[in-house]
């Protein structure tokens, strides 16, 4: 049995007296230490999926087991990074991290908790901004604090809900690299499930990419393995044939899903041509590879 086992997961919300099925029959197995990216369109239920797996919400159908235990509530060994940072504005950067450290290691002395928090903030390059509040930090710095907060509790499982979604392309690239380094430098297997709408981001970080079908109700498509060697760089992904193949495959999958969903919703031909809201960022310096 895999480390994280998701079986027949379903969730619906009641909207105006009708049940809206957001997720239906989602199955996924994640091995210990694996980095999985779930890629899908906005509003297709990706975040709901992650909330169910993390134990922030409870499913209507199916179940999630982690290490053999059924998930009921947030687990001790898991950390979560939110898209909108979710830092507490009245605490300084180190205060925010320390809150997580104190909750994870309550037996430590205050000094040890602070030193530990400081170490992780330095690791994400915020050693000089320890006492600044989130309001005085840029978006990228805030997300760095959030990442430091997640890693400082020394988690075995990491849930990332579009962690770089609100950042500009350059900051996003830097942070993606830093996250990859943090994961590999953790010294223990960190199992990660990341939600993203960027196929390139998924390519850069994951062992497997799972495209999510367009809901409602959404479910998981077949996973695509990414066998590229690490460490990976954005520039390298631009030229690598294997990377291109995976990227094209995932985008084709997603486009196919959205077409299906449209046909299901409205049988008449749609005027709108298939616009792909999948973020495909291309560094301005990199040459466009020929197919």
């Amino acid at each position, binding site marked *: 049995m895999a480390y994280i086992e998701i079986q027949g997961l379903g969730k619906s919300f009641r909207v105006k007296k009708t049940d809206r099925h957001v997720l239906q029959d989602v199955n996924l197995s994640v091995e210990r230490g694996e980095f999985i990216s779930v890629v899908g369109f906005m509003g297709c239920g990706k975040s709901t999926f992650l909330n169910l797996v993390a134990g*922030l919400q409870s499913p209507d159908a199916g179940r999630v087991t982690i290490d053999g235990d059924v998930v009921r509530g*947030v687990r001790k060994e898991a950390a979560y990074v*939110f898209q909108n940072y979710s830092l507490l*504005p009245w605490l300084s950067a180190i205060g925010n991290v320390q*809150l*997580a450290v104190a909750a994870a290691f309550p037996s430590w002395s205050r000094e040890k908790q602070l030193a530990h928090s400081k170490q992780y903030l330095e690791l994400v390059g915020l050693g000089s901004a320890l006492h600044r509040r989130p309001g005085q930090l840029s978006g990228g710095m805030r997300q760095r604090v959030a990442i430091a907060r997640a890693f400082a*509790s020394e988690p075995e499982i990491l849930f990332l809900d579009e962690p770089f979604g609100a950042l500009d392309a350059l900051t996003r690239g830097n942070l993606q690299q830093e996250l990859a380094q943090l994961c590999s430098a953790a010294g223990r297997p960190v199992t990660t499930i990341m939600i993203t709408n960027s196929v390139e981001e998924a390519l850069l970080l994951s062992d497997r990419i799972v495209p999510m079908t367009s809901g409602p109700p959404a479910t998981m498509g077949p996973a695509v393995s990414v066998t590229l060697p690490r460490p990976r760089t954005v520039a390298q992904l631009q030229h690598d044939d294997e990377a291109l193949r995976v990227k094209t495959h995932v985008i084709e999958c997603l486009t196919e899903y959205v077409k299906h969903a449209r046909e299901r919703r409205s049988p008449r031909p749609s005027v709108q041509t298939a616009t792909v809201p999948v973020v495909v960022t291309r560094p301005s310096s990199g040459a466009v590879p020929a197919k």
Partner: protein
Amino acid sequence: MTARGLGYFLLPITGVLLVAALWTAASVQVKDLPSPVRTWEESKLYVLEPFAKRGEMDQGIIRLASYSLMRVARGFLLGAAIATPLGLLLGLSQALNRMFDPVIQILRPISPLAWLPLGLVIFQRSEPAALFAIAVCSMWPTVINGAAGVKAIPQDYWNVAKVLRLSPVTTFVKIVIPSTLPYLFTGYRLSLGIAWLVIVASEMLTGTPGVGGFLWQEYNSLIYSHILLAILAIGLVGFALDRLMGLAESKLRTI
């Protein structure tokens, strides 16, 4: 002087002078209403010797106001001590909120004049009865704002508490309190304003020394200029209280 300076200083002064002119005009019409000048002449003793104590009610205006302020402070603190946890609880629990919302809505509009006799019946003495009236009347804005503040805590912060597995106590201290503080301070500011309104009524009814008691006694002694003095004192102190509370509010801003 610049146009800005004109707006800041001259306009408010003009406003005050206009009202004083209206007052003077009214005092010409109404025989018993003293003019501003006469008010000052007859009550300058109280202002120029603000801390003097000549008799139970015959005291300097600041001394009288300080009695009222002490009473307000005690009543307000008593009210806030009850209202703050009550408001937070009502915000945290949907069931409690449903249970007590009608009670609050019915108790809230009751005048201090109605609570005071009940206080006298319960406590038999005027001082605790006054505190009771102040506390009961002034607590509602704090209760309502506290509850609204807790309800307005973004889901993100609750998620943080869940994800970090914070204990209920830590969640309360680190998330609920800081997040609700701006709402609570708005409540305190409104509550303090009400407490100051109530003090005058309760002192008038119980005849205890203070600006309200002084006002009522001077009315009975037919010294009408002192009524105006007391009114002005009440207004100025109320204004100062509100400003102080506003200052505390901005100093303690968390978000």
